[in-house]
């Protein structure tokens, strides 16, 4: 992975004398003090980040946090007051008009919040626009524009005017217009904010699907944390022109940097953010041929659990629970085979917790298998509920013994 976009110490001051304002900030004055003393507004303040190739980098913040200013500084629709922007090592801020134009024509495309489609042009002409200003021959640009429209499923609407399309369709046209020039970098300024919630979810999924295929480097702006968590490989939380925290969805939700981020994340559906791997415990199982009901029971007591996985020749065979043991043998040391339930909940390490909800509600441990069906871990209902109920304390329970202890403490209460 290479760093596609590198931004260093980027600031924007809206006012007559940016240098003065920046100097005051450097001396530790706050944004409000600068505004009161000089009448200048700090839009973005010393932002640093880098985006890797093929990554979706989400900048999330409320209105007025400077996120739209930030994204516009990247393609210089707004000129930065200070700092450095590099695409593939190429200096963006120092680029002359011709270089800047070339970069915008070929490398960076943008999708806008209110679509910004040209009302006097047809859908196709809108999608063609970037190619037209780049003086691509008519036949070729038509072909490429239609291809982009096909990607977003709107090829049949090519000759319509944008105004005759619904909001979701219009933004698809906006997306197609961005994709038609085949840019390396896609800047998306709250592209889905103007859409209603159902359509928004569709569009998010569609974007994720397209991204799997296209692997563009995307800088995505949003004010919706759920959207940020859904789409972002990494997320930056922005407040009053500064980055408060940059990290993956799990880091942001699990380890908020300050109260501001914590307040944001407290209503987040954690089951959609954390994956199975984050609560997984080491696999615990007995080989079917080498054990009997008594040994299983002893092991269950030892672990403080109510169910245990069984293996046959190293492969996952089934699950025994205290109840199935009791029913099969009436309490004695009978055959284990009869007590084993072959149907059991399974999951992949990358699944989000929401997907193992049902199994956990039934009180069964979930077997985690990797892509090659190797048994790599167990997720106990206790661990899942503990993580979901957790508020602020460190949720990462990577170290297994600690987790097991906690699970053991919780288990009797649950089984009682």
């Amino acid at each position: 992975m290479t760093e596609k976009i590198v931004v260093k110490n980027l600031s924007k001051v809206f006012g007559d004398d940016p240098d003065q304002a920046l100097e005051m900030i450097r001396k530790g004055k706050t944004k409000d003090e600068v505004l009161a003393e000089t009448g200048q507004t700090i839009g973005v303040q010393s932002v640093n980040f880098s985006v890797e190739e093929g990554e979706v980098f989400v900048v999330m913040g409320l209105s007025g946090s400077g996120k739209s200013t930030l994204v516009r500084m990247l393609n210089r629709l707004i000129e930065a007051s200070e700092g450095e922007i590099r695409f593939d090592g190429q200096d963006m801020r120092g680029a002359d008009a011709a270089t800047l134009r070339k970069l915008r024509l070929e490398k960076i495309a943008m999708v806008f919040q209110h679509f910004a489609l040209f009302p006097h042009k047809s859908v196709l002409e809108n999608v063609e626009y970037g190619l037209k200003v780049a003086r691509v021959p008519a036949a070729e640009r038509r072909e490429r524009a239609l291809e982009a429209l096909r990607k977003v499923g709107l090829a049949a609407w090519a000759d319509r005017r944008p105004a005759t399309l619904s909001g979701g369709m219009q933004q698809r046209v906006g997306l197609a217009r961005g994709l038609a020039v085949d840019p390396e970098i896609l800047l998306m300024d709250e592209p889905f904010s103007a859409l209603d919630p159902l359509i928004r979810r569709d569009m998010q999924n569609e974007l994720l699907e397209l991204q799997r295929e296209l692997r563009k480097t995307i800088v995505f702006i949003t004010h919706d944390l759920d959207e940020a968590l859904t789409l972002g490989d990494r997320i930056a939380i922005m407040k009053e022109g500064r980055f408060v925290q940059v990290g993956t969805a799990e880091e942001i939700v699990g380890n908020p940097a300050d109260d501001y981020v914590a307040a944001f994340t407290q209503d987040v559906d954690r089951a959609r953010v954390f994956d199975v791997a984050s609560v997984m415990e080491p696999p615990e199982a007995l080989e079917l041929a080498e054990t009997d009901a008594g040994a299983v029971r002893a092991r269950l007591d030892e672990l403080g659990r109510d169910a245990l996985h069984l293996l046959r020749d190293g492969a996952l065979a089934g699950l025994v629970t205290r109840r199935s043991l009791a029913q099969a043998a009436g309490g004695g040391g009978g055959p284990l085979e009869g007590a084993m339930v072959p149907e059991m909940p399974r999951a992949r390490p990358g699944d989000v917790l929401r997907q193992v909800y049902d199994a956990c509600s039934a009180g069964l441990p979930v077997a985690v298998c990797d892509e090659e069906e190797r048994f790599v871990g167990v997720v106990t209902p206790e661990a899942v509920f503990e993580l979901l109920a957790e508020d602020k304390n460190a949720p990462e329970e990577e170290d297994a013994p600690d987790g097991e202890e906690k699970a053991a403490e919780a288990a009797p209460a649950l089984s009682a």
Partner: protein
Amino acid sequence: MWQPSDSFEIPLDVWVETVIKGWLVPNFRDLFQAVQVPITTVLEGLDLALQAIPMPLFTLALVLVAWAVASRGLALFTLVALAVVDLIGVWPQTMTTLAMILTAVLFCAIVGVPLGIAAARRDGFEKGLRPVLDIMQTIPPFVYLVPIVMLFGVGMTPGIIATIIFALPPIIRLTNLGIRSVPEDLIEAAYAFGSSPRQVLWEVQLPLALRTIMAGLNQTLMLALSMAVIAALIGAGGLGLIVYTGLGRLDVGAATEGGLGIVLLAMILDRITQALGSESTTKSPGLLETLKAFFRIRAPANPPGSGGQSVS
């Protein structure tokens, strides 16, 4: 009681006279003569053409244009109005007036649209231009007839120059307004995709401002018509001359004929240009399309495949 002028009077009239007669006229005579050349050429060509077209043919053409861009009602009105103009015996003068108006409007557009674009692009230029436009619109035309006669002489062309000065402000103002009211995010999008300023102008700003510019053109046309009589004072011909002569001789009949001709011509032109402007609200055609619409006769019915959704 004493007032300032008792002891001192500013010799403004002398100053102006000195500047115009003593400096402008002798030094810039060639320039003022040269300015007249394109106007005279266009005017004479148009007048010649309009006079050469037989009345029934011209009427038919204008009726069809009215039908195509507006409605059957306007077509009928055009037919009757032009017939009346001919029947009261002022057809040649009407054509002369039309040639004058079209020439004036053409030059207004040639000068006004670029000025409006420049004003929309530079706030400073707009600030400087605005008082000039205000002055142009508030000064009674009679005031600048004298300097125009000094600089350009008398005749048709000076009359048209006076008309241009009088009719120019609306097209500048509305071009400026039209371009400024193109939504900012569209401009931003155009730049984000690498457009040059020229491409932004031609691809986005002008097409979207076209409706407003057309409204300005309509205003300019109406103002030009209202100058028809005044321009006759300095030697312009056409319907204005009939009215002016009628006025001088207290010939109320002739003056009415001329006046009626002007009113009818004004109504026809106003309705046709208004229809051209408002038509684009429903279909928003491109720049070229609308320009073509000036010359082309289109079927007024719905185009096939539009599903008949348009409200008629």
